[in-house]
């Protein structure tokens, strides 16, 4: 892991002035902390990605295939014809600059090529050279340039410095979404075997074992059963989840990060407690044991390959519909792609809450419901007994994850739940939440350790807003509905805003949920004493 300068030093040298040399003449510099390790051949081989080999971005020779130029041109041509979005976004940018200072990576790094408009120009310039009349004739004057290995290296650097968060597209007068351009850019890079280990390893694992971490079926079950014991310790209630059970009414799928790493695991405990308390007839699956989809960060095709397990498993188990846990990009895939790619899900039924009878009209076709919607509906109908005061030791704010925000519009549901499970909730300033939310800085597969400096830079605007409510209202808990967030926000907070912890929404639900037959709770799910219980003896718990 590259060492990261201290917080105050990191941005001391950061200003947003562009360099003297024009961007086409400014080469990239692969400094430690600003790039991710390359994808390992064994993982590429598992899923059949092209050009598996050992290489590193800091090598001079990237061992590109012989005919790499041809591959890129063919790849470009194909995608221009397949995606109107891509073709249009290549053509109509007026370089008005409205998107420029909207990108967290530009704000945190000051690197002009992290302005969305320039990020797009990196690819656009090559497109112009070979696909437009003006570019062919006028060359550089028309903003066109030759495709060279250096250009490919630049693409690699900057398309893996975009988290596909879509913030830029909110502000663009034509809706140009640089995330779309990055997605296609990464697809093109993948054709040459240029990818990063932090994405290809989860992809390979997910393909073979069903989840990113490569947790095998028996271990998956074990891990969840471990949390069953934890829950019993805190609440005295014994829960019995089921796995791969045919005939269950509902299949539940969540990111495997929740099963594996703190603080996501507390969120997982929240899920288990909720389902138990309302007596939900549901099952886990070890085959479709991943909600997340790093295929989205590889190619449209890979996304489809990985996502296919959700419907396939729902069909095999004969459930009525699918419930999805707290995850960001998982929900982008479900909302924007799943039904189109792998539907129609005509073997499922239109989702109806078995507890409240509510029809989820907005999920009529995909037949997949977001857990936070589901819970909001339970609360609205008074089906949950909630003791908000059990979260009184927390002053909570909410981080809108990019994908549910800008690829779905999921704003009120989590806030409604939060306001019903805790007494102290404070939103961050309006320019930094909802559709204008700032990325955690580590999304789209960039949540790796060797990339820590960029992550801290990219996460700065988010952290800056948290700091604001931390100072104003004493906020000490940052809630979110995304597994990547739960993994990456803790180090970000540690770095920029020490004293703020990170939680999933359903951890707070779990804290507040009054369960039948529970003993008096003295701690929250983390084993931290509840307000007023600091002195109680929890040794024997």
């Amino acid at each position: 892991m590259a060492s990261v300068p201290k917080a105050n030093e990191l941005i001391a040298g950061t200003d947003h002035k562009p360099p003297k040399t024009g961007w086409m003449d400014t080469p990239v510099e692969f400094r430690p902390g600003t790039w991710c390790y390359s994808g390992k051949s064994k993982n590429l081989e598992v899923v059949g990605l092209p050009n598996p080999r050992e290489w590193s971005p800091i090598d001079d020779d990237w061992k590109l295939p012989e005919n790499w130029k041809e591959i890129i041109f063919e790849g470009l041509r194909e995608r221009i014809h397949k995606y109107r979005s891509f073709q249009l976004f290549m053509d109509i940018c007026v370089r008005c600059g409205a998107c420029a200072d909207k990108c967290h990576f530009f704000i945190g790094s000051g690197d002009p090529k992290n302005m969305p408009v320039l990020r797009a120009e990196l690819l656009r310039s090559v497109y112009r050279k070979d696909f437009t009349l003006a570019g062919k004739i006028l060359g550089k004057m028309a903003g066109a340039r030759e495709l060279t290995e250096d250009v490919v290296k630049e693409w690699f650097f900057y398309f893996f410095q975009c988290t596909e968060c879509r913030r830029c597209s909110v502000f663009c007068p034509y809706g140009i979404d640089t995330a779309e351009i990055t997605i296609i850019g990464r697809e093109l890079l993948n054709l040459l075997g240029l990818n990063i280990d932090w994405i290809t390893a989860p992809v390979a694992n997910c393909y073979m074992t069903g989840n990113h971490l490569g947790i095998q079926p028996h271990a998956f079950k074990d891990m969840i059963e471990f949390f069953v014991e934890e829950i019993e310790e805190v609440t005295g209630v014994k829960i019995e989840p089921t796995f791969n059970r045919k005939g269950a009414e509902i299949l539940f799928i969540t990111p495997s990060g929740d099963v594996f790493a703190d603080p996501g695991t507390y969120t997982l405990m929240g899920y288990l407690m909720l389902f138990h308390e309302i007596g939900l007839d549901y099952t886990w699956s070890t085959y479709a044991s991943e909600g997340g989809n790093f295929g989205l960060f590889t190619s449209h095709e890979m996304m489809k390959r990985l996502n296919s397990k959700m419907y396939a498993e729902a069909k095999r188990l004969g459930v009525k519909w699918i419930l999805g846990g707290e995850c960001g990009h998982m929900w982008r895939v479900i909302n924007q792609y799943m039904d189109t790619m792998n539907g129609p899900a005509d073997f499922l039924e239109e989702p109806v809450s078995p507890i409240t009878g509510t029809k989820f009209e907005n999920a009529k076709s995909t037949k997949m419901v977001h857990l936070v919607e589901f819970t909001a509906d339970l609360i609205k109908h008074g089906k949950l007994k909630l003791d908000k005061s059990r979260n009184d030791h927390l002053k909570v704010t909410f981080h809108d994850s990019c994908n549910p925000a800008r690829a779905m519009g999921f704003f009120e549901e989590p806030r409604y739940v939060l306001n019903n499970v805790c007494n102290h909730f404070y939103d961050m300033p309006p320019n930094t939440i909802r559709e204008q939310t700032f990325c955690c800085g580590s999304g789209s597969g960039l949540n790796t350790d060797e990339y820590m400096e960029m992550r801290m830079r990219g996460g700065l605007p988010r952290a800056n807003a948290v700091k604001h409510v931390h100072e104003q209202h004493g906020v000490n808990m940052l809630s979110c509905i995304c597994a990547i967030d739960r993994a990456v926000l803790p180090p970000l907070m540690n770095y920029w805003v020490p004293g703020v912890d990170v939680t999933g929404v359903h951890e707070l639900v779990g804290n507040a949920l009054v369960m039948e037959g529970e003993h008096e709770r003295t701690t929250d799910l983390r084993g931290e004493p509840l307000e007023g219980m600091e002195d109680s003896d929890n040794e024997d718990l």
Partner: protein
Amino acid sequence: MGIKFSLLAVLALVLVAFLGVEAIGMNYLFGVLVPYLAFFLFLTGFIYRILKWARAPVPFRIPTTSGQQKSFSWVKQNKLDNPSTKLATVGRMALEVLLFRSLFKNTKMEFRQGPKISYQWEKWLWLAGLAFHYSFFIIVVRHLRFFMEPVPGFVHLTESLDGFLQLGLPGLYITDLLFLAAVTYLFIRRVVIPQMRYISLPADYFPLFLLFGLGVTGVLMRYFTKVDIVKVKELAMGLATLHPTVPEGIGVLFFIHLFLVSTLMAYFPFSKLMHLGGVFLSPTRNLPNDSRIRRHINPWNYPVKVHTYEEYEDDFREKMIEAGLPVEKE
């Protein structure tokens, strides 16, 4: 460099028209042939570009959701920023096209050491953009009086609204001022803001100079050197009715103006100015966010290789049985 190149290009255009008319007397070329050719290029180029975009499929439904989604009846949906119906999507598009709604959301980031980041009010680009586009539009409408006989009522109305200040003779049009001011602002902004300058290409300066040249020659003709309007109308009507004539003695300034317009028309379809047509086709704006409600069809959806449950069970059957997990084949 891009600035100089673009400026020189526009000056060269002016010079070409000037010499062509003044020195060689090619009035017919500049008064008839070039405008026809330019108009032809504009029309065919424009249609070609639109068709080309329209032919590309929209495989996925990817609207940028800038507000609350459709949810329960008790959650208020933001229909204009996150439409789920066709009608609301039309509303969203109308606001984009007529009011530049997304640009209106613009802010300016302030970065101070500490670090402390804040986001400031910044509506100037939006304002100048609106001023520029609307004055351009109104000027175009006003020009219709040259091409139509009798002049339609809405053109008269536009003229009188635009000239409501009733200053000077001939009456000053607000849009003339606004247009030049807005173009000047857009240019200055590009040059003065370091990031803007860094991203700007010749293709960004060129239209601005061209438009500025157009505006200046127009203003000169109207308020200062006074061309013979009757003859200009004769020429314009000739063009419009396909009986072109070039009356004597119109003055070279007019030919320069006309040549710049011709350049703009011919250049339009091959440049970023096509955002005019493109904005209507943008998939992040012109689609409802309803892909959980109605299945969106991808015309080129194809089967992919997947790792099936059966293969998975084959990989792990022993372990699954041992852990008490149900299996298909014992």
